[in-house]
Each structure stands twice: as C-alpha cells, then as structure tokens.
C-alpha cells in the first residue's frame, strides 16, 4: 500500500488516468470531455493552457499547477505570460472579496445614522 506521509504526492499526478478504476463510465466521459476542452478551437491550445494555469491557482491545486506550468512551457508561453495569468486569477479572487465590500457598506449605511 502507498505510504500516506502527505496528502499530496507528486507521483499521484501520474495516476490521474486511473481514477476510472472505481467508476469507469463517468471517468471515461470526463476524460473525453477534458480532451475536447483542451483541443485547439476558437482559443489556441496555448491560450487554454494559460487559462488552466490561472484557474489552477484559484483552486490551488498542486497537481494542476505542476501540470499546467509544464504545459504552458511546452506550448511556448513565456514567464511573463504565465505570471500575468496568475495575476489575473489573483485579481479576480481579490476582487471577488472586495466587491462584497459593497454589501458591507450597504449594511453599515442601513444601520448607521
């Protein structure tokens, strides 16, 4: 049995495809869908990899950050583009909190003179 010294083990990323072992039909559907999503389409494969990199930072998934850092490099993205993608995630994350500040302001204004 695998050792469980940490919740995250880089080796587990390689086993991603094996999730079909416990539920084949849904797993297969997921991977088919996943494959379609990342195909070159209205967006280039590189643009999609950069979006995936940003989202990986939002969901803070170490597997995805590992995979999409490599994928962005392979697809020719440069360091600046990759860091800008992360900042987009950061801005939306921070902005999503901050925009709720308007609710707080509404409430405060309701309750105060």
């Amino acid at each position: 049995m695998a050792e469980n010294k940490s919740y995250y083990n880089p080796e587990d990323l390689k086993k991603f495809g094996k999730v079909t072992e416990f539920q084949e039909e849904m797993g297969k559907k997921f991977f088919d869908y996943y494959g379609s999503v990342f195909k070159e389409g209205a967006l280039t494969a590189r643009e999609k990899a950069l979006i995936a990199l940003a989202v990986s930072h939002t969901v803070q998934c170490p597997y995805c950050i590992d995979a999409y850092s490599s994928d962005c490099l392979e697809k020719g993205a440069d360091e600046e583009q990759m860091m800008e993608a992360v900042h987009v995630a950061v801005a939306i994350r921070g902005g999503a909190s901050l925009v709720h500040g308007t609710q707080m302001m509404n409430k405060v204004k309701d309750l105060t003179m």
Partner: protein
Amino acid sequence: MKTATLSLQKRGNKLASPSAQVDFLSHTSIGDSFEEKLQNTGIFPLTATGVDIFQVNVGKMCNQVCKHCHVDAGPDRKEIMTRETMQLCLDALKGTDIPTVDLTGGAPEMNPNFRWFVEELTAMGKHVLVRCNLTIILANPKYHDLPEFFKKHQVEVVSSLPYFTARRTDAQRGEGVFERSIKALQMLNEVGYGKEGSGLTLNLVYNPTGSFLPGDQAGLETEFKRRLKTYDIEFNNLFAITNLPVSRFLEYLVDNDQYESYMEKLVNAFNPAAAMGVMCRNTLSIGWDGYLYDCDFNQMLDLKLEPNAPNHIKNFDLGKINNREIVINQHCFGCTAGAGSSCGGETA
C-alpha cells in the same frame, strides 16, 4: 542558470567520453528498452529506406558553448574535417542522386574549407543546407558577408533560436546570444532570406530550454512569427526539435536531477508513427574524420554504422548503406516522443 564556457572534454567531465554516455544510457533504462519498444510495435529491426540527406559534420569547433549541445562543441574543440575528407565526400556523392547535403558542426562556417566545400557541392547541383548558429555571422568581420555568400549559392539556412526572449535563449546559448541572433536574422532578412518570393529559405529551429518536450510545431511557429515581428524578422518555417539525452544535455539532466523524469516523459510519449519516420532511415551522417553514422547523435556516441555497412567515407557503398539496419540505443526515445523529432522538426 549559469552557462559553461568550456566543453565537457576540456573540463575533463566523464560524460565527454561517448562510451561512458552509452554505458550510462544503457544502464538506466526506464520501463522497456528502445529495442523492446520497437519489437512490441513490430518495427524491429529498424532499417534504412535510402539516403535523401547526406549530413556532413565538418567539425566540433564552435564560437558558442550551448548548455544543451549534443556535439560538446566549443571554441576549445579543434577537431575539424580536412579538405581531403571533404573531397572523399564529393567523390562519394558524385555517382549518386542524393539530393540534399546538410552541413552541420560546431559552427560549420569556422572550417577554413567551408566555402570551397559549398561551392563544390552546389556546382554538382546538390541542394545545400547549412545549420548556422546565427552569432557566427557577427563573430568576426570575415564572417559578416556570410548572408551574401549563402544567397549566391542558394544555400538553405537553418538556424537555432530556442526562444523569442533573451532570458531563455541566453540561459541556454550564452550571455548576449539572443541580441546577436536577432541582429544576424535581420542581416539574413536584408539580403532576402525568409522573405516571400525570394526563393531564399530561412528556417528556424526551436528546442526546449530545459527538461520539457516541445509542444505542437504549428502552434509554436505561429507564436514565433508573431513575437519576432516586433524585431521585423521574417522566416519560413519553424522546426520543433526534442533535446536528446546526449553529451551536454545529458550533463544538464544529470546535474539537475532531471534525468529520470525526462526519460520517463520521452518513454511515455513514445509514438509508433514517429518511430516509423525517424530521420536515420533516410539520412547518412559523416563525421569530421570521415567515419559513417546513422545520425549526428549516433556520431557523438560513436555508434558507427552496423558491421555489414562500410564504416568510412573512403569505402562508401550506397547499396550496402541503403540496406543497413539502424544502430539504436536509449537516446533514440528522443526521436519518437510525441509528434517525433528530427533535424527537420516533427516527423509524425
């Protein structure tokens, strides 16, 4: 990333020895060996299909010391092809209809007989291709007219530019290389190279600046064209090439603890269609000293043609060369990963 300024040989590194490299590669197999992989795919032994490309390595001397160089080239390497050996190549080519001669090195232009050789080859009607590292054009005033020389002889220029930013290019090829490469590309453009309708072909070679695989060649080409436009640079095609675990790239992998994971990437990306299309099947590689190999990588690993084929240009025999089996080892996984890799880019 610090760039070395000396070859492995000059530094006395044990990986300078071809047999030490072969030994290392053979004893660190990850899963199936390359031979087993071919057997399982039903394409072993791998055989030649003919010779379309006569690739001559005119020497290991180079003005650069790139970190990934599979030749272990550099200014401290003195091995270069003599005029006599070049003459043997011309004699061998004479009786054949091999269309293309691919000149590589080192920096092939540093061989004092380079221009003579190109003139003789083009006079024979051969299509000549030179692997020009770009910075050589600016390295010394005596090379400044190379673009004109190439144009005069309708030479196809194939140049390495691993990336469209200075940071990554310089990390691989040395400080200031990006800037000088851009200048050299502009000089090639000025005489018409890479310009539509000029008939002068300028192709670029992309290779990853680290231990990752090249992505889709067409996608990379589009991005390179877009990014190089900012320097007013035009070129014809981009060849995406995978780094093979040979010589200084092998050193880089070992030193950075990336060897196993890189080999694993190559092995996992094995593509039978790419294996069918490996370049050694239609290439003959000639070393600076006239010995014959299946490809430039085998040359650097000192894996000569199989025993039934001639082993030196002075014994050139096209019939036997066309019927040879290819000599393979673990480094070959670099040619069969993903969309495949050859001196002309993707193969599958």
